[in-house]
């Protein structure tokens, strides 16, 4: 409500001008950084014992509230929520069983960042996808944009709810620490490192032990690549890691924006002008059927 009229027109003018300027192949969400240098995590489901140490480490660092079962004896979140940014789920098939860790995948080209109208979600140069509640208007477009169903909203009693999700401990990384969950993992099922190094490590594990793993490093190329990557002994679809292809999710949307916005802003007035000139000469009266 504090917006002055001058600010508004300035913003509007900038918006239209900016749309014309960004007609080039600019892709805000991919950034300039080398994805191999991104901070990343590798989760090897075959080594995970489901102890939930990662969940608790996350709670302690990020000060989230436990979601206990009915007896109030066990922290038992069923899925990610505003209070649970990471957790271990159990896949129980007929003959096979596997744990799977959930958290933000920190995509190389994040759809949430592409969709966020106010750049409250950003892909930082170090790799984490971070969130700024001072910018967020609470539109929840990121929740629909994310192909992994990760961003969650504070649906409880908050008057001005925020989006909540894993930050890849961006606030620890800047102090040279690793992520809280990876640091705590007792079996090294979850390790932290540079994305390029982790890809090399994972591929070495698959080639040394082909019987143990599905021959695929999920997240290396999936959805355009993610900073959290998975090795598994059971098919990834069964762990809820869908086949999303290798095209970055925002590609079609941003490609359309780069063509449509300047196209309509320039083409629309030109077309209308031409129609108007023709109409002035009476050219439409006989030919235009409408």
């Amino acid at each position, binding site marked *: *409500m*504090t*917006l002055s009229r001058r600010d508004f027109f300035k*913003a*509007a003018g*900038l*918006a239209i001008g*900016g749309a014309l300027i*960004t007609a080039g192949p600019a*892709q*805000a*969400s991919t950034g300039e950084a080398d994805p191999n240098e991104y901070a990343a995590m590798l989760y090897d489901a075959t080594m995970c014992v489901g102890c939930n140490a990662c969940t608790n480490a996350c709670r302690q660092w990020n000060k989230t509230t436990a979601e206990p079962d009915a007896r109030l004896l066990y922290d038992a979140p069923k*899925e990610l929520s505003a209070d649970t940014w990471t957790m271990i789920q159990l896949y129980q098939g007929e003959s096979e069983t596997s744990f799977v860790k959930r958290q933000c995948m920190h995509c190389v080209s994040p759809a949430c960042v*592409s*969709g*966020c*109208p*106010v750049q*409250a979600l950003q892909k930082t140069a170090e790799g984490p996808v971070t969130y700024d509640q001072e*910018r*967020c*208007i*609470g*539109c*929840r*477009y990121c929740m*629909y944009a994310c192909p992994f*169903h990760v961003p969650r*909203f*504070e*649906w*409880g*009693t*908050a*008057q*001005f*709810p*925020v989006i909540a999700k894993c930050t890849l401990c961006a606030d620890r990384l800047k102090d040279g620490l690793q992520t809280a969950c990876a640091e705590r993992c007792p079996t090294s099922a979850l390790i932290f490192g540079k994305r390029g190094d982790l890809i090399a490590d994972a591929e070495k594990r698959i080639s040394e032990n082909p019987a143990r793993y599905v021959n695929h490093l999920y997240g290396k190329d999936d959805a355009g690549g993610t900073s959290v990557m998975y090795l598994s002994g059971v098919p990834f679809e069964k762990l809820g890691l*869908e086949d*999303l292809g290798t095209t970055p999710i*925002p590609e*079609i*949307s*941003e490609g*359309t*924006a780069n063509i*449509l*916005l300047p196209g*309509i*802003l320039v083409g*629309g007035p030109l077309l*209308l*002008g031409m*129609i*108007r000139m023709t*109409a002035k000469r009476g050219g*439409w*009266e006989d030919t*235009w059927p*409408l």
Partner: protein
Amino acid sequence: MAAITRSNKNNIPIAFWPLLALTLLGIGLAIYRLVVGLGVSTNMSDHYPWGIWITVDLFLIPVAGAAFTISLLSYFLGREDYHSIIRPAVLAGFLGYGVVGVLLFLDIGRWPQFYNIFVPGYINLHSFLEEVSLCVTLYTLILILEIAPVFLEKWGYTVPIRWIQRGIFVIAGAGIVLSMLHQSSLGSMFLLMSHKLHPLWWTPALPLLFYLQAVYTGLGATAIAVKLIWKAMGLPIDRVLFRRIGQAMSINLMLYAAIKVGDWMGAGEIPLLLRPDAFGYLAWFQFLIGIVLPLGILLSKLVGHTSGPFWAGVFALIGTFIERLVVSWIGLAEPNPVSYIPSFTEIFITIGMIAGGVLIYGAVVRYFKLFPDPEHAHA
């Protein structure tokens, strides 16, 4: 409707009281929602982050697009006969966008900082949601300029009217360009959801489909409104105008149908249409009732009667509603789906805001000159 004519100014129409009650209830609930937050006042959840308000917005925007279509036909394609319906169409458009704006404002969880969408350093030009927000805001300002003469002439301000009249082609032109942008961008918003939206509805052509849909839906809404209001006010209905509206509608319906079928075939989605599930049936229903039926009416001799474009409009609106419902709500898959039934607050805020729009429209019809006088109306 007869009760709202200017002839019986002293009687308050019966419809006024229930509309006023619904509006006041809506305003009260809106304040309640702003105070307690989205979690307490709505039934939305992580499984359904968007609810009934977004669906209503997505439907109202093409319906209110009538103002843009009529401006285009009237100001740029030189059709004098559309002039008689510009004012009612623009006012309906303005109030429609007003309702949309209010519902969007109520829908954003962190409303005290809504103005961030205008802050230059924050604006994300790759976000179609940002683009829709900016265009809808600017377009609403344009509609205010277009409708202002109705009020200015009553209050005797002739100078600003002359300014507006002098600049009307620039004003209307800007409105048309902004409409083309945001009507298509409304579809583009769902381009990011290729893995969530049902494949019978998701296509890279969504912006084009939404744009064409906005044009024929706006025209259909115009036919419906003109027939009802003109009849209620005893104005002679211009049959040539109706035929033109019908023809413009049919061209856009045909383009939509061609792209839709082409996309289904090109993407190999015909088997999904033949699958006996809810989405298969919905797609058929939308295509037959919302596209084929109105096209059949408009391509027949019925286009020459006022009831032709009227009924074509009714069916086209039903089809558009289904498309917007699927795209923004039931067609967006989440794992472990839970049910979402809008809360009392959500439903009655929606009804209240629409009732408020109708009330204001009625008041303007009553106290200002929105329609041509019967004796001067040219048939």
